[in-house]
């Protein structure tokens, strides 16, 4: 069976109060646990969709909540279920719907990473069970996912002629977008100078190159196109998807340090462009997974927004911030809006395509591209109206 364009669509989006919970957690409160955040986001998405809960026949939960407990809490006894990260959840929902295993799928994610004190580096760094590279080099003091990207960036800057100030364009642009987003946690604008003078965490990465670590939840309702059209005037369609992985040499960091994920991004991009019948030049908004700023230049090159080697020029001359030629991470991304591990980017895609993104709305946006390349597992999702 050939996967088809416009077969599935997002019809509901929901989220928790990221900035409110950020303040509460910093004041020592514990607003919810991961399941609680996910449940609140689900309620919000269900309200937004306007559909009866009884119509939901599929459930996908994020990696941070147990599937069974999540289904129990939400009262969902479905005929198809799964657990995956943000982008894989989208791809799985698309596959399940197109294959006829479900018609309306709830995707829910909740994470109490801030209040629970989740460590992304050090003796009890999370993620080591899934990615050996996160923990393998700890005898030499190499720890934290940021450090892996710092090592990548140093080499990449050397090869691509990307200066520290060029790199600062990412954090500055995303903060400028976030300043127009009431839901964003960090909204105070910064300059390239602020960036350059900020402290290093793992040099060459500055603190502004790191994602936030905050509590919260996100939920999406994805349905088959017929149902979506019956229930809503503004479904956001999945036009194309693609995936390509680099696993060879992953633990010794080969795909990061020598390829910068490029071949996988190019292949994932090509698959999705072919399915959607459009390419990077047709995109109105580009949303890149950005646990670290480094993902953005890699994605701009890898998914064909600029020639390989031209990213410094693209960032400084074309621009990715408000008023720039290519709006990137218009919500502020993980660096400034909220670190919902790829999930909040899907909300932004829907808002831009519904035309409800407020001050940061890209006028007349018809297509949004989401790119993800976590540890060289490259995925591309193209959304359209």
């Amino acid at each position, binding site marked *: 069976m050939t996967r088809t364009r416009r077969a599935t669509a997002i019809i509901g989006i929901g989220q928790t109060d990221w900035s409110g919970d950020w303040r509460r957690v910093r004041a020592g409160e514990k607003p919810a646990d991961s399941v609680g955040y996910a449940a609140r986001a689900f309620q919000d998405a269900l309200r937004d969709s306007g559909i009866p809960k009884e119509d939901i026949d599929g459930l996908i939960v994020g990696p941070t909540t147990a599937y069974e407990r999540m289904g129990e809490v939400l009262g969902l006894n479905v005929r198809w279920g799964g657990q995956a990260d943000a982008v894989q959840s989208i791809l799985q929902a698309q596959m399940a719907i197109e294959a006829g295993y479900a018609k309306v799928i709830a995707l829910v994610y909740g994470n109490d990473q801030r209040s629970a004190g989740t460590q992304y580096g050090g003796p009890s760094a999370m993620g080591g069970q899934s990615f050996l590279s996160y923990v393998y080099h700890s005898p030499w003091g190499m720890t934290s996912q940021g450090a892996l990207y710092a090592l990548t960036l140093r080499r990449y800057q*050397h090869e691509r002629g990307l200066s520290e100030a060029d790199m600062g364009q990412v954090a500055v642009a995303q903060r400028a977008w976030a300043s127009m987003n009431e839901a964003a946690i960090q909204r105070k604008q910064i300059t390239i100078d602020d960036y350059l003078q900020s402290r290093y965490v*793992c040099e060459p990465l500055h603190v502004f190159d790191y994602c936030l670590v905050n509590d919260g939840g996100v939920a999406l309702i994805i349905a088959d196109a017929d149902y979506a059209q019956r229930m809503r005037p503004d479904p956001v369609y999945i036009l194309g998807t693609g995936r390509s992985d680099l696993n060879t040499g992953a633990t010794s960091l080969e795909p990061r340090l020598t390829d910068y994920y490029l071949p996988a991004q190019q292949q994932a991009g090509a698959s999705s462009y072919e399915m959607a019948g459009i390419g990077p030049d047709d995109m109105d908004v580009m949303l890149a997974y950005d646990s670290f700023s480094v993902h953005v230049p890699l994605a701009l090159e890898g998914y064909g927004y600029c020639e390989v080697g031209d990213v410094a020029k693209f960032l400084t001359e074309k621009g990715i911030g408000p008023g720039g030629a290519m709006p990137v991470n218009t919500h502020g991304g993980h660096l400034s809006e909220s670190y919902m591990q790829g999930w909040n980017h899907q909300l932004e895609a829907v808002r831009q395509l519904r035309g409800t993104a407020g001050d940061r709305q890209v006028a007349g946006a018809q297509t949004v591209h989401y790119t993800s390349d976590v540890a060289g597992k490259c995925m591309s999702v193209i959304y359209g109206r």
Partner: protein
Amino acid sequence: MEPAPTPRPVPLVHDIPFWESVEQRDLKLQCCAECGLWRYPAGPICAECNSEESTWERVSGRGTILSWVVFHKTYLPAYPAPHSVIAVRLEEGPLLISNLEGPEPEGSWIGERVVLRYSTMPDGFVLPRFALDRSASPAPA
């Protein structure tokens, strides 16, 4: 006061000969007996030719710095900030993450030639590390 313990390697069965060779100060890496492909980390089969036969081969210890970072935040008690980490491309091909001991290069470290050293940590754990190779001329990056 007890020295902070060196973070121990992830316990992987196939890595045992690697760490034994480090302790004997005679670094060996796993190599496919059929096609000669190096495997680091070690593994049960060759990712290239699927052979289950492998040998452990001594490496020259010479390599080139591919990239480096400096931690300005302390994550591990054994490694207070500032702490640097290097990625080294061995002459034989494998890519190793390690540390640079002794003098540091001025400016960029990329392309600097390095040689293997064995370092005994304060808690007695032995690590394969590198030092600048003063006998070599810089390699093209």
